[in-house]
């Protein structure tokens, strides 16, 4: 069989598989960036001992535990704490002074995965003296990732990188003040968790659930196609208070989106935007 037919058939299979997942489990990956999904699905084929995506589809439809396993391949992004330290530095120096003026502060980390960014923001807010009046909503579509995030437990061998990032992000304390290390793991202080709410939420299918002052959603939109990016940015716009802030990944932008007119550049180099004043 010519290879190009094979690629074409694989595309059909991928579409059918994503349709099957949507109809059976109500997870909607149909508007995710397909090339990245394809790479992940090819990896998953080996894991589930399937030769084709059609075979995988059969197993996913009839065995929910296979879907649960596949979900780990389709959704989990590994991030670092204080990834892109300059982003956190810009939050500290430019956004925090304005957040400080609110009696209570709500933050939404959309697509929080295993929670690295949630803990980073909680520590930053604590260092700035704002955590006591802050609440961080951390949402993801993957229940396993959410449970892991809620635990606040990370491998000890990642702590050195986290510590270096934290120092570069303008950290005012030592990261080790916030965790205890044991059995090859670091466990973050439960006091941080009192200011976090973890919840299942899909940027594809769910709507706005709260009013927030800052949305941080980094390196999630790159996994979406344009229409879904627009939907997510629309949710962020609706969730934000008057003149609220939006932080994206270092290669993400509102500029070419349907929401381009809804935001002003705030710290462009670090992809921090501010909701435009409504006329």
């Amino acid at each position, binding site marked *: 069989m010519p290879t*190009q037919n094979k*690629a074409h058939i694989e595309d059909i299979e991928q579409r059918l598989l994503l349709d099957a997942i949507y109809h059976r489990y109500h997870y909607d990956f149909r508007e995710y*960036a397909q*090339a990245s999904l*394809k790479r992940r699905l090819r990896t998953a084929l080996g894991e589930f001992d399937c030769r084709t995506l059609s075979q995988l589809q059969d197993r996913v439809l009839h065995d929910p535990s296979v879907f649960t396993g596949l979900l780990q391949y389709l959704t989990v*992004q590994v991030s670092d704490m204080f990834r892109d330290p300059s982003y956190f530095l810009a939050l500290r120096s430019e956004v925090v002074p304005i957040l400080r003026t609110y009696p209570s502060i709500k933050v939404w980390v959309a697509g929080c995965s295993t929670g690295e960014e949630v803990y980073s923001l909680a520590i930053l807010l604590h260092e700035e003296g704002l955590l006591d009046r802050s609440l961080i909503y951390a949402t993801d579509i993957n229940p396993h990732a959410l449970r892991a995030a809620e635990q606040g437990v990370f491998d000890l061998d990642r702590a050195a990188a986290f510590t270096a990032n934290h120092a570069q992000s303008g950290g005012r304390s030592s990261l080790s003040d916030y965790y205890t290390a044991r059995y090859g793991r670091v466990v973050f202080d439960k006091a941080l968790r009192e200011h976090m709410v973890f919840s299942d939420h899909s940027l594809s299918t769910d709507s706005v659930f709260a009013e927030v002052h800052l949305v941080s959603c980094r390196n999630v939109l790159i*996994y979406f196609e344009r229409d879904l990016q627009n939907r997510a940015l629309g949710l962020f716009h609706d969730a934000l208070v008057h003149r609220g802030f939006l932080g994206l990944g270092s*290669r993400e932008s509102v500029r070419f989106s349907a929401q381009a007119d809804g935001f002003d550049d705030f710290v462009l180099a670090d992809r921090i935007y501010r909701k435009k004043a409504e006329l």
Partner: protein
Amino acid sequence: MTARAPDPRADAQAAASWDAIVIGGSSGAIDALNVLLPALPAGLRAGVVVVLHLPCDRRSLLPEIFGYRCALTVLEAQDQQPIQPGNVYFAPPGYHLLVDRGPRLALSIDPPVNFSRPSIDVLFQSAADCYGDRLLGVLLSGANEDGAEGLAAIQAAGGRTLVQSPESAPVRTMPDAALALVPAARALTPDEIAAVFAQLPTRRLP
């Protein structure tokens, strides 16, 4: 398929059907790119996408550096950007760069492949899926084996594959690995690849 043509002009004729050129390299590849990219003619019908392994800084100077020396527009790849003929796109540091349906560019922060992000395999495999036999893949000097499997995917999809000849490469690990895995790939010096590029079909310019 016809036998491989010995002279660059025959390649250029076959290239009429190429919609894209993907280029990958690591240690020592900048020297080759300095020869290759300026050889691309104005009005090129193909889009050009480049992954170069670099230290993971936030900003890459490559688009500026090569922009001055090229007849084509040189850009840093942006997520969801349509691939336009006659543009050269460089992968941003720290992100995988993929070709997605459209064809458009897509970024990901999936884990490194072959210890590399961006990975040449990730670009080449996704481009092979998208362009099939309308793709030219070029792999340059480098110190690891990233790119070999991607080049094999391009070859398997009916595309054409060129490798910097190991003798002409400052670091030959990458070309050696690719030629071992893809015997049908042609080994050429940077000057020879530049000669192929110079003959690529162009749009008539106003």
